[in-house]
């Protein structure tokens, strides 16, 4: 076999492997969508779930998922930005910072069930937050923070050190250089990582079963006072999310149309995660173009 044939063979093998993976993913996706999409109607997306009879929707679960996501990101985005900036731009190389980095790596590889049980013990029991959105948001922060921090740190580290030198050589302080030059340049990478993290949080179930709870009490969408017990914004109410709902009806659902509800909910979940991923890609590219070809006109 000569070099040319070897090359052809190797290319062929790689193509086969790649198409196998795509085939598995595509058929999985197609299966979920074909099973679930017929069920997805406006009614399904907006009505509360029913426990014993057919015709229930996923309205409250869907709202819970988004609300929990927003709360979790509100806590974890600033924290991860601060930690990532510190690690990439300020941290000196010594035993303490390498300990921090190792801890982050270990944290990011913890199974979400373990994180969920930890959250149950700390937030639900110890801090007496109960099964609540707050406990859920905090546990999602624990779950997501290491990955987001790593992402911020890596995005910043990928910006050439020459940019930092350029800023410092112009008499800018380190803080100005980081916030005005380095972070804007790294923003596309940071944003992409955040949105992908959001997708991961949105689909998370195991960490939430013991923290945000498995029940979705009826909500009064006319009262948005966060202190009112049935208010959608009340952070101390239990809140079953979409992913937890899917797990629950598959394990103990007794409504007659459980299979259809689960399929519909799965389709909605997967579409949401897909949207997160696609928007991450689009938004990252858009932002990069905007940052580098300078959107500011006539400044």
């Amino acid at each position, binding site marked *: 076999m000569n070099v040319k044939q070897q090359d052809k063979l190797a290319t062929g093998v790689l193509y086969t492997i790649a198409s196998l993976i795509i085939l598995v993913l595509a058929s999985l996706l197609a299966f979920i969508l074909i099973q679930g999409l017929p069920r997805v109607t406006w009614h399904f997306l907006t009505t509360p779930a029913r426990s014993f009879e057919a015709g229930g929707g996923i309205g409250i679960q869907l709202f819970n998922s988004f609300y929990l996501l927003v709360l979790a990101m509100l806590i974890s985005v600033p924290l991860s930005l601060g930690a990532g900036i510190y690690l990439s731009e300020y941290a*000196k*190389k010594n035993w303490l910072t390498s300990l921090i980095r190792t801890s982050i790596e270990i944290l990011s590889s913890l199974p979400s069930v373990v994180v969920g049980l930890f959250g149950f013990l700390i937030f639900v029991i110890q801090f007496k937050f109960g099964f609540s959105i707050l406990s859920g948001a905090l546990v999602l922060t624990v779950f997501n923070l290491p990955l987001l921090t790593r992402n911020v740190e890596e995005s910043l580290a990928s910006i*050439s050190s*020459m*940019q*930092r*030198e*350029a*800023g*410092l*050589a*112009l*008499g*800018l*302080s380190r803080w*100005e250089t980081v916030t*005005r*030059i380095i972070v*804007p*340049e790294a923003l596309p990478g940071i944003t992409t990582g955040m949105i992908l993290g959001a997708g991961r949080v949105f689909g998370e179930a195991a960490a939430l079963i013991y923290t945000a709870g498995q029940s979705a009490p009826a909500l009064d969408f006319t009262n948005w006072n966060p202190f009112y017990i049935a208010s959608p914004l009340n952070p101390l109410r239990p809140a079953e999310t979409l992913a937890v709902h899917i797990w629950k009806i598959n394990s103990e659902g007794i409504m007659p149309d459980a299979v259809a509800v689960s399929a519909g909910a799965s389709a909605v979940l997967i579409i949401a995660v897909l949207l997160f991923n696609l928007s991450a890609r689009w938004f990252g590219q858009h932002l990069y173009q905007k*940052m*580098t*070809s*300078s959107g*500011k*006109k*006539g*400044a």
Partner: protein
Amino acid sequence: MKDYDLTKTSIKTFTAAEQEIALSTEDLHVAYGDHEQIKGVTLQFPRYKISAIIGSSGSGKSTYLRSLNRMNDEIQTARVTGKIMYRGLDINRPNIDVFEMRKHIGMVFQRPNPFAKSIYDNITFAPQRHGIKGKQELDQLVETTLQQAGLWNEVKDTLHKSALALSGGQQQRLCIARAVAMKPDILLLDEPASALDPISTSVVEDTLAQLKEHYTLIIVTHNMQQAARISDYTAFFHQGVALEYAATSKIFTKPAIQATDDYVSGHFG
């Protein structure tokens, strides 16, 4: 490599009456960890002149240049001792405000490093942070500095386009314009043309010759012809020591030290 006597040096000094000195170092040492890169360099750089620093790779010339505006502060293991005198002040003292000092002693790097911003913003960014706000003033600053850097005619219609779309030579001249916009006293240039093609190099060299009227330039270069073409004084570095410092014409025709002679005539090493 031949062993040269590092104790035998020939360093030109200036008297105050003869020539105003913009910057000088006295017994400057730079060490990275345990490794001493610069072993006691004493040099005076005259005002409104171009001084070149030449020497082979690893001779410490870039290290020396980077310590002049304390860029070595950024390297955790670097230790700089000795005096760097600027306007009667030792700027190597720990209590010096390095950010303020760097406004007076600017730097252009080996590889062009424009910010990922528009051409206009590249120039106005730092002056704005230092308090220049008026649009007219900023417009004026952009035009003058780009003209000084010999770039105005090429970019005047695309000021709000990304600086990253420029060619390497244009980017480097933009970086020079950006440094000049701070109205520094002294401009340090670390092999500013080494990443450029010959045509861009010659444009950058013309730019530097123009800048000499208003600024004191200290340039590190690999390229001996370049040093010979544009500089007034030349220092030859070898193994962390300044072996010879004299008028450029003297360095290239009648050097006092054997090592310099070998280096400029290509018999080095």
